[in-house]
């Protein structure tokens, strides 16, 4: 199933340490890792709560390990403070949110794309994040493996935003040979480097990470700090520097990070969707096209950083955009803002929240909008 593919993707992506707490509908990822990680000289630690899971992972990352934390929405809610910590001290780590029905305990086994803005805005303060949206068990594998490289390359937490449908869905997954899988490692300073002479934090082009145990005598603090990890809570420019450098580290490289899949040349109406709903959107477009309607799609693969350029380009070439999400409109406002007045942007939730849109329902809506 998707969750198992996700765990295998982590292992293929070089995961060495994972930590997690049981939570429906993500638990199978942990079960698979508990069994498989020791086989590849790694370890899965079931912690006393989600908070210690992300903390243990961050600690392990600071020793140079590739780390992984699978959970669901309520777990991410608990982890947010320390996800912010990982952002602030620039720690590579991969998180998976197998989203479930919320708010609160809600419906653990039902899919809902209910936490889409949580990675972006859930932790306090001003920051950027990277998040991928798999649409199939195959992508659970591929995106998870890829997430490790993104995390290492940009020294950031990276989210894989699945949901109960994708997590528990069973489909064929092709696992490439190990030598076909690209593994990117974080940069580390040369042994014996004097850290006071180089940037080890807050470099927009990503500073080398002065991991523990190498004699770097790194000072790593959650307080606002400078390029050398020295705390600075006093100078007015210190906080501005701290925020802007961290944001720009992601935004400056958005072209290398952002991925969309699209087919909308000559179309009047374009469906925008991600994750499980994108499967329905794509199929609806195929059906509508077979009836002669000029409709296309744009599948968002990287939800964050937001594909502003891609949405703006889209809004300049089509008349209408229909955003489909299995929620009450979380990603939609961002699409609408990027499209501004260039195209009409509408939102279509499923008839029943927590269920992927019915195909016929979407096709009817397309027909309505084309007229």
């Amino acid at each position, binding site marked *: 199933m998707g969750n198992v593919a996700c765990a295998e993707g982590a292992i293929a992506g070089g995961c060495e340490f994972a930590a997690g707490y049981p939570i429906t509908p993500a638990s199978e990822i942990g079960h698979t890792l508990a069994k498989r990680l020791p086989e590849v*000289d790694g370890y899965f630690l079931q912690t006393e709560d989600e908070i*210690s899971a992300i*903390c*243990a992972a961050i*600690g*392990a*990352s600071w020793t140079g390990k590739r780390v992984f934390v699978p959970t669901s929405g309520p777990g991410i809610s608990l982890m947010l403070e320390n996800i912010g910590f990982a952002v602030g001290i620039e720690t590579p780590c991969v998180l998976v949110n197998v989203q479930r029905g919320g708010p609160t305990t809600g419906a653990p086994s039902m899919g809902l794309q209910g936490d889409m803005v949580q990675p972006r805005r859930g932790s306090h303060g001003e920051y950027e994040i990277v998040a991928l949206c798999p649409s199939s068990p195959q992508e659970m594998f591929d995106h998870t493996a890829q997430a490790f490289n993104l995390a290492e390359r940009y020294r950031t937490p990276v989210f894989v935003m699945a949901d109960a449908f994708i997590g528990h869905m069973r489909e064929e997954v092709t696992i490439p040979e190990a030598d076909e899988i690209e593994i990117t490692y974080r940069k580390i300073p040369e042994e014996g480097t004097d850290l006071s002479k180089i940037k080890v934090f807050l470099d927009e082009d990503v500073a080398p990470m002065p991991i523990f*145990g190498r004699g770097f005598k790194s000072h790593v603090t*959650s307080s606002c700090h400078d390029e050398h990890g020295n705390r600075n809570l006093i100078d007015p420019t210190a906080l501005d520097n701290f925020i802007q450098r961290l944001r720009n580290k992601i935004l400056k490289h958005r072209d290398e990070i952002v991925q969309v899949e699209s087919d909308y040349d000559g179309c009047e109406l374009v469906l925008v969707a991600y994750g499980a709903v994108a499967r329905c959107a794509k199929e609806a477009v195929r059906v509508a096209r077979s009836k002669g309607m000029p409709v296309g799609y744009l599948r968002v693969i990287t939800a964050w950083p937001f594909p502003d350029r891609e949405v703006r380009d889209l809004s300049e070439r089509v008349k209408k955009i229909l955003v489909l999400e299995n929620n009450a409109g979380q990603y939609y406002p961002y699409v609408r803002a990027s499209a501004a007045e260039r195209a009409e942007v509408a939102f279509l939730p499923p008839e029943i929240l927590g269920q992927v849109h019915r195909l016929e329902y979407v096709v009817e809506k397309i027909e309505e909008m084309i007229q």
Partner: protein
Amino acid sequence: MSSVQHPLRKYLRPSVEATTFCPGCGDGTVLQCILRAIDELGMIMDDFVFVSGIGCAAWIISPNFNADVLHTTHGRPIAFATGIKLSLPEKKVMVVSGDGDLTAIGGNHLIHAARRNIEMVVICANNGIYGMTGGQVAPTTPREARTITTPHGSLENTFDISPMVQAAGATYVARWTTHQPRQLTKSIKKAIQKKGFAFVEVISQCPVQFGAKTGAGGAVEMLEMYRERSISVKKAGEMSPQEIEDKIVTGEFVDTVKPELCEEVARLKKKVRGKG
């Protein structure tokens, strides 16, 4: 005499000129005891990774210690240290933090790390109050004490931290006060050499918040109070609960041996990989 240096100065970051502790703060004495323990063991700072949370005691190691230092979010240093130790078992991991950080918000992590018996030294500087944020009540503040969040007097009972950690499964637990730096240093040395979860609680004076708010007085008065109220674990064992109610029981509570988590993990991996 600018050429004279404190013998432990070499373990501090060159850029650090002074500590940020209030005058008379016991945490400074704890700082020295930790460094003295490391020095007397013939170890170097690179043998360690230090982790601290949030609060005055967390500033013992950050930014002062010239070593790998992780200054984490409030209450979580033990959780981070767990990940570090499991991944870098050849280094000594030492957590230095305060009573609020380790037993209030961080209580759960303390209990479970002790239960797991993961090799780690945890030094809890217990000043009975939340000092850094202005003197709020802590789980260790005496009943009836007037703090800034208990202006009419605290209604709650306090934690007896060391026995609690012992009950959770730690293999070394000791408590001293900042009036006993030599014994404290000796315990820290033992804790460092322990192949298991080692916990050292230090009752440490906070004259500026605790002393001022509860009327306990300045640094010297509080140290004198520690001296008067301290009794040994052995002596306490012969006294009734009423007799020891206002005493500070100091000494070693437990010093034993149990399977340690990192060793068990290594063994498990070997076993699993041996099969494949």
